[in-house]
């Protein structure tokens, strides 16, 4: 990719960090990016993303150069024409699952029929719910989906206002730990990965620097793999959550496959189809093409051996 060339170097690189991306927290904490780019006089600016949609807004408005999102969110945005590319997978998180209270009597997806399920429409847990139902051959209209923000869904579940909840970490971990919530349906494959996206304009102009950012991300990823305990503590401290919660959250993250590839492509295509059925993505969009446009493994392939 470096062959395309571009201008010499950016003045600054703007990275986002997010509590759903432990890698970004580690990277920011240790200041490795600053270390690497300082010599060249490039400034690093960190911006907090409080959710995929914020990260995408920042990317779209040229407020950050790299943004961390869920894979499905990146796809939706791409379908709206955002000029972004996914260049790195910061983790394969199992951050969403279906949760219920332990005495609710719900044990399988079948049991959800006619029940009230909280989910945030358009986000990963929602996609997860639809995919799970579809996998069991249950029509989405057979359950009552209540649109609640993630945290509110958790409260609604614990106060028995809904029967189940398509949860998201760290809320889910906390509900599990403190309120006796039960993850009655899990499927890591229905999660859509943590995507590190770059603005296309940045990638075109400074391809070399995309590689170098991936390099520092790799350093952080490896550190987490080597130091799971410390990583959990760091996450707990940064995000202001309980260490136990952080541990559970981290355990559900698979940091082993950083290079965007076919696995990811397929998972995202599946999500895309579900989203298309749910009218979130335009019916005449070509999902496969969109995914091909979005996922660009070449930078990571080049950098990671």
């Amino acid at each position, binding site marked *: 990719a470096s062959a395309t060339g571009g201008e010499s170097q950016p003045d600054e690189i703007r990275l986002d960090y997010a509590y759903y991306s432990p890698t970004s927290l580690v990277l920011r904490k240790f200041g490795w990016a600053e270390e690497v780019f300082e010599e060249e006089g490039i400034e690093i600016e960190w911006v907090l993303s409080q959710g995929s*949609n914020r990260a995408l807004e920042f990317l779209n408005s040229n407020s950050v150069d790299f943004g961390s999102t869920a894979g499905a969110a990146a796809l939706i945005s791409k379908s709206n024409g955002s000029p972004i590319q996914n260049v790195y997978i910061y983790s394969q998180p199992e951050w969403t699952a279906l949760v219920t209270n332990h005495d609710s009597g719900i044990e399988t997806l079948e049991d959800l029929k006619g029940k009230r399920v909280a989910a945030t*429409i358009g986000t990963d847990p929602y996609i997860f719910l639809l995919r799970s139902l579809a996998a069991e051959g249950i029509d989405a209209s057979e359950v009552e989906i*209540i649109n*609640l923000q993630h945290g509110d869904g958790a409260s609604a579940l614990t106060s028995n206002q809904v029967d189940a909840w398509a949860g998201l970490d760290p809320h889910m971990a906390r509900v599990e730990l403190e309120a006796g919530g039960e993850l009655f349906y899990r499927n890591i494959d229905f999660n859509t990965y943590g995507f590190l996206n770059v603005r296309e304009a940045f990638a075109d102009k400074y391809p070399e620097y995309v590689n170098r950012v991936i390099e520092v991300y790799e350093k952080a990823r490896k550190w987490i793999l080597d130091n799971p305990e410390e990583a959990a503590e760091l996450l707990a401290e940064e995000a202001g959550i309980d260490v136990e919660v952080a541990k559970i959250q981290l355990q559900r993250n698979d940091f082993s496959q950083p290079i965007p590839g076919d696995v990811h492509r397929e998972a995202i295509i599946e999500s895309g189809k579900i989203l298309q059925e749910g009218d*979130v993505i335009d019916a005449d969009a070509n999902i496969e093409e969109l995914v091909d446009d979005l996922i660009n493994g070449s930078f990571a392939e080049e950098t990671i051996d």
Partner: protein
Amino acid sequence: MAKSTGELTGVYIREHTKKKERNKKKKKQTEVVLLGSILPVLLFILWEFLSRQGVFPAYQLPAPSAVFSAILDMAATGALWEHISITVYRVFAGFLFGTIAAVLLGSLVGFYQKAEHIFDPIIQAFRSIPSLAWVPLFILWMGIGESSKITMIAVGVFFPVYLNLVSGILGVDRKLIEVGKMYKLTPLQQVRRIILPASLPSFFVGVRSGLGLGWMFVVAAELMGASQGLGYLLVLGQNTLSPETIIASIILFAFIGKSTDWLLKILEARSLYWQDRFAKT
């Protein structure tokens, strides 16, 4: 107006002036509407132009034409009316309850020093709490049904109405209050017959402010398990990263908010006919 001994010419002149005045009024009204449309129309034209020029790419800020076609699509499926009607219903109900609560508490606080000392501080404290902060508490207390949504909107409406009413009451001319006192009105009569009419201008500002805030609180209200409504539409747009939906909901908010405000403004003008206001140049 004055039913004076009408000579024929007098009557004629009056009829004549009335007609002339009615015509004048009509002409005036269209002029007002036209003047008021200048800025919005300019804005839309500029925006459409910039969008077509590619200054705003569609993924950031879709052109107004795209937004309107999105709205029309919704209108075609009928979804639009459902979104609008449920939200209007919620705002209306919340507005009603919020206003009633504000009038009751506001009169109490405005009239009794003790009540002011007891209630006002905590009300003023609650006033700065953002709508989003109430969401988890409301879900906890009232669940996710309509009642929690309406209450949330009522909370938004309450504060400006309360604040304006209390200040209006405190600002009532002592001279008029004394008139009431001379006739030994009961406190309730004082409020109804002197204080409320005298603070009506203030009250109306509060009500209009409150309605505006009601519209703002819709978003927080519809975060609580709504599957229809303008606030839902907005959040959906943000969650599904759909700028058309976001902008469409903004335009709907602006348009419907403005319409409801306009109704209040008419009511205000009708109720304050007696004011000796200054005519503007």
